[in-house]
């Protein structure tokens, strides 16, 4: 439980930190996203109910900080990020046995792909509202780069969180199974 609370706190800190990390102008103003990596780690480390709680919490934060209401219209409805996080974290949770056996590489790659999927889903939603589907090089970079960055930082974040898990004596098998 301490580890779960710690993850909630880290998601909050990362979400605020993202607001202060400038977009990367040499990569078509791509943004750096840390929260999805933490959430996807939580999806692998936590039992199903807590994984859903973490996805819900991260989704609410993401919705609150990104969704814009302009001229009385909402471009991405509140709750869409919760759904995205819920589905993607659910898929990640399904690969939990692999992670428990020490195979992190799949999850690092998937964290990157899923981060890009979140950005892509946001783009498709705003495109649906604004019309004119545009897919140029800039947009591809803006969708792809956050995923690549997430993929690159995932091993470090995972290692740190694993260390924190050990420090808080988190068992990693709260559903009664011991993976070997």
């Amino acid at each position, binding site marked *: 439980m301490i580890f779960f609370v710690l993850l909630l706190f880290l998601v909050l800190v990362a979400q605020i930190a993202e*607001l202060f990390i400038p977009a990367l102008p040499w990569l078509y103003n791509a943004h750096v996203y840390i929260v999805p990596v933490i959430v996807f780690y939580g999806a692998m480390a936590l039992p*199903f109910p807590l994984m859903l709680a973490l996805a819900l919490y991260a989704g609410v934060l993401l919705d*609150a900080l990104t969704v814009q*209401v302009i*001229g009385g219209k909402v471009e991405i409805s*509140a709750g869409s990020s919760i759904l995205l996080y819920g589905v993607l974290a659910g898929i990640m949770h399904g690969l939990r046995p692999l992670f428990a056996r020490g195979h992190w590489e799949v999850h690092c790659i998937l964290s990157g792909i899923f981060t890009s999927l979140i950005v892509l889903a946001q783009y498709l939603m705003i495109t649906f509202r604004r019309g004119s589907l545009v897919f140029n090089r*800039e*947009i591809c970079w803006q969708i792809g780069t956050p995923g690549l960055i997430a993929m690159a930082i995932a091993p470090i974040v995972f290692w740190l969180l694993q260390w924190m898990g050990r420090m808080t004596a988190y068992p990693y098998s709260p559903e009664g199974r011991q993976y070997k």
Partner: protein
Amino acid sequence: MSRTSIIALLIFGAVLGYFLSFGPETTQKFKASVYQLLAPFLTGGSGIKKQITSVRTGLRSLDQLEHESAALQVENRELRATNQGLRDVEHEVNRLRHALNYRERSVFKLIAAEIIARDSSTWWRTITINRGRRDGIETDMPVVTDLGLVGKTTTVSDSISVVLLVSDENCRLAASVEGSREQGIVSGERTTTGLTPLLNLNFLSKQADLKPGQKVYTSGVGGVFPSGLLVGLVKSYRVRELDGQAQLTPAVDLSHLEDVFVVTGRR
């Protein structure tokens, strides 16, 4: 799947359904309340960021400082000359205004605000400022600097507000071109390639033939932006199938903004 998991899934679904049922007004309120909760962290984070930046910029070499000082002296002389020129222009404008019985130039009530965060996501161009409802700010108020238009407020909490920049595709405003009768709608682009975003002035006539450097001002149509605020300068003009379109360079350098003013009304 265990019973606990099923119950958790049902609760998750119920909460998700609750959020999805939010209308624009509820979403606005929800967003404002979360921003209010995060306000101390955002202002604190902004302070830390400024300290880090000031330490980094403080570590300049002597050569750089000397070079900068020389450049500033030149700039100072230029500004003095410009200032003198502007005084003459001001005098002439006042004289002409009086002569033509023009309406006295609007003077706005301004609230100074500091930017505490910017661009919270990939697809919206926004900044967060350290003023909110407590300071008299409301939704859809124009935000300016001494150089021109910055954007308009969208989400307003008690102590902080989100400003949608003029470079966002969704921030549309009616504008007119200096020295012509051309009017159009300015909007930002969905993506920007460089540091400086460009604006599009759409729905111009095909005969507009705008020249680079012509100034574009808000026309006051639409109710949000008062007339006469400088939006940008024409960079290029092209004729499309049905209308003309000009690309504008924003009057304000939106990527290096630090302080802005919120227009709360007329004095």
